[in-house]
């Protein structure tokens, strides 16, 4: 049991927070995102002395990125994986012309170059057949390209660029980029928590440095990472989790400094109950007893001791209570969570609960609205629309996420009795009130 209780630790590869560095360049062993010409984002860990494969876009040498700034766009030069930064192209204005699609007929024969011919070009001249010359050849071989409108020409070139370009842009993992990456790639893993909804959770919960938050995260660590980023290692996070050890996989994509990782403590649900023993049958050895153990036993004992101590420390943090907020994105019914965790939350602090399904929140919503333990109870839904803003071609994106889930939020209050009245009178009054309302 001791081994299983061990928290899966995220290795800290840096001691400094990027924001405090003037030159926060790409470091070895960092997690980063690569924006690819296809519009996809690839997540990599930059292992030194390796080559990073980007599928059909080619391969590049990891060492060539180490020490470079984020945000620049690089082109893969050749098959040995050399890269060079390229200038990011400006958006081009498109002039309106008389052209229209009246003369264009759908035909497979419009493009004279075959797929095989293009592939041969790429194979025979890998160093020269860069995207531009390939795209130029393709345009030249397109019989009705000139008949297209300028808009449609631009779209055509853009589409070919996506296909043949060998460029990529390394991006820093941030709260935004990490959330966007998982939402695009594996939304189920993160409880379908969309980035705008996540941002709203952080604001509803007034997440900030030098505070203490209680977090129930069944989004594989997306929520707890976001809280950690906003706290910058100042303050304390207590994560309550499923199973014996936490599964906050998303934490490792953030390149958090040790200080930030150290601000996170975790406990399994069983340890929330004050009467639950931390570890069955755990006996601390005296120094003499310890010396009497074999090497193997010593290792096991030390590991187990570390775990027990960690959990004892985390329980002490939890039992101190007075948390500055309860933030939940969980598969469990909100009422079952509130029953157990509300007593640990200080007065006037926010309680914020996310779920992709409104139905899950309704019972808790109605309870909170009628309870005297909460004020400012509201349930909200976020709506987000992204636009393409190319000059002369501004419009909303054609497809978008249809739902970002629901947030139930409130402030915790106390039903303090009225000191101006003596107890019997208060009771009398409330009895009278009850009688009145039941009529």
């Amino acid at each position, binding site marked *: 049991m001791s081994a299983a209780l061990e928290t899966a630790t995220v290795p800290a590869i840096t001691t400094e927070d990027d924001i405090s560095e003037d030159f926060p360049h790409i470091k070895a062993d960092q997690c980063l995102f690569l924006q690819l010409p296809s519009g996809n984002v690839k997540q990599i860990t930059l292992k030194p002395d390796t080559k990073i494969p980007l599928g059909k876009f080619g391969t590049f040498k990891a060492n060539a990125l180490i020490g470079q700034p984020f945000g620049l766009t690089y082109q893969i030069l050749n098959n040995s994986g050399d890269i060079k930064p390229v200038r990011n192209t400006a958006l081009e204005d498109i002039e309106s012309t008389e052209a229209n699609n009246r003369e264009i007929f759908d035909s497979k024969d419009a493009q004279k170059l075959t797929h095989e011919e293009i592939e041969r070009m790429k194979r025979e001249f890998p160093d020269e057949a860069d995207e531009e010359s390939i795209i130029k050849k393709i345009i030249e071989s397109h019989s009705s390209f000139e008949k297209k409108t300028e808009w449609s020409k631009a779209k055509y070139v853009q589409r070919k660029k996506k296909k043949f370009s060998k460029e990529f842009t390394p991006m820093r993992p941030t*709260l935004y980029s990490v959330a966007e990456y998982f939402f695009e790639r594996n939304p189920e893993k993160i409880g379908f928590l969309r980035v*705008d909804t996540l941002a709203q959770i952080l604001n509803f919960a007034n997440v900030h440095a*030098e*505070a203490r938050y209680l977090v129930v995260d069944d989004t594989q660590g997306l929520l707890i990472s976001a809280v950690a980023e*906003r706290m910058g290692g100042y303050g304390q996070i207590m994560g309550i989790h499923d199973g014996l050890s936490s599964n906050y996989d998303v934490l490792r994509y953030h390149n958090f400094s040790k200080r930030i990782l150290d601000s996170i403590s975790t406990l399994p649900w069983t340890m929330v109950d004050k009467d639950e023993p931390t570890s069955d049958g755990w006996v601390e050895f005296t120094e003499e007893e310890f010396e009497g153990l074999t090497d193997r036993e010593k290792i096991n004992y030390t590991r187990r001791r570390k775990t027990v101590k960690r959990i004892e420390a985390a329980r002490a943090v939890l039992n101190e209570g007075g948390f500055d907020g309860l933030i939940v994105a969980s598969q469990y019914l909100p009422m079952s969570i509130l029953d157990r965790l509300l007593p640990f939350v200080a007065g006037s602090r926010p309680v914020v609960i996310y779920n992709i399904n409104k139905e899950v929140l309704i019972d808790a919503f109605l309870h909170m609205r009628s309870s005297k333990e909460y*004020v*400012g109870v509201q349930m909200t839904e*976020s709506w987000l629309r992204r636009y393409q803003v190319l000059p002369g071609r501004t419009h909303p994106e054609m497809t978008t996420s249809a739902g970002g889930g629901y947030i139930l939020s409130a402030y915790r209050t*106390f039903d*303090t009795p009225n000191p101006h009245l003596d107890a019997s009178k208060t009771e009398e009054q409330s009895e009278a009130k009850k009688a009145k309302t039941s009529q």
Partner: protein
Amino acid sequence: MSFRKYKRYVEEGDVVAIHMGRDTLKAVTVVKDEIQSNKLGSFPHNDWIGREYGSKVYSKKGSFVYLLHPTPELWTLMLPHRTQILYLADISFISAYLELKPGSRMIESGTGSGSFSHSIARTIAPTGHLFSFEYHEERANLARQEFKDHGLEDLITLTHRDVCKDGFGLSDTVNAVFLDLPAPWEAVESAKKAFKQHRTGKICTFSPCIEQVSKTVAALNEHKFVDITMFECLIRNQEVYSVKKLTVDHAIQNIRYMDARRKENKAKAKRSIDEMKGHTSYLTFATFLPVEAGTAPAATE
């Protein structure tokens, strides 16, 4: 210290958010021997001092309010409006996109009524800094006083200045820029200089009209900002209503027996047609690239 750091108990001098009912909040500074009078009654401040935040406090007549700890979110709901203000949907999305966190250094223009300023200061504390610019002198003075009263003065430098004419006067300083101006494109060039030059930075402009967006995009493009994109973000309130489940059988019953049951079988829709904010502003975003991007020596071996 009250807006950036929680405390447990109400003390003299605190700004307290009085919760008087759903959507009714009022900011009150706690002063000994003073009495807060509102539509619910008269509440002696002396009853509040020493109470835990979140407590219910009573007037002499037995009506009550809750004492809430001030937060930037509550402040947005109760601040004195001197201008149009930003609300949570835009504030939270912009904060995430601009990657605000402890240590961020940011420009905001204009300060307006200080709704976003409070939120930014909270998010970038304790090590970040906000440079806020306001061209209306009286508004600048009022905001400055509020920041002081709310314990944010060391986090915010407020300058009275027309940034479109005179620029920000900052160079190599910030990670993020937010422009809520009638003509944000006039401030883009100066904003570019203000960015920390050796790292990426993010800019957001906030404009209600699409024509403003076009001009801003052109200016951002001209000044070599990349990843130019635009969003709209809205929040919809959700309510839960109890609705009687009526069937056509009820209708038939009603017609057949025009009796007392008719009344009880009528669906009582207790709700009104809800309104929501349908548009606040377009949020245009772009990325500032480290200088000499593209001319740095090729990273080949």
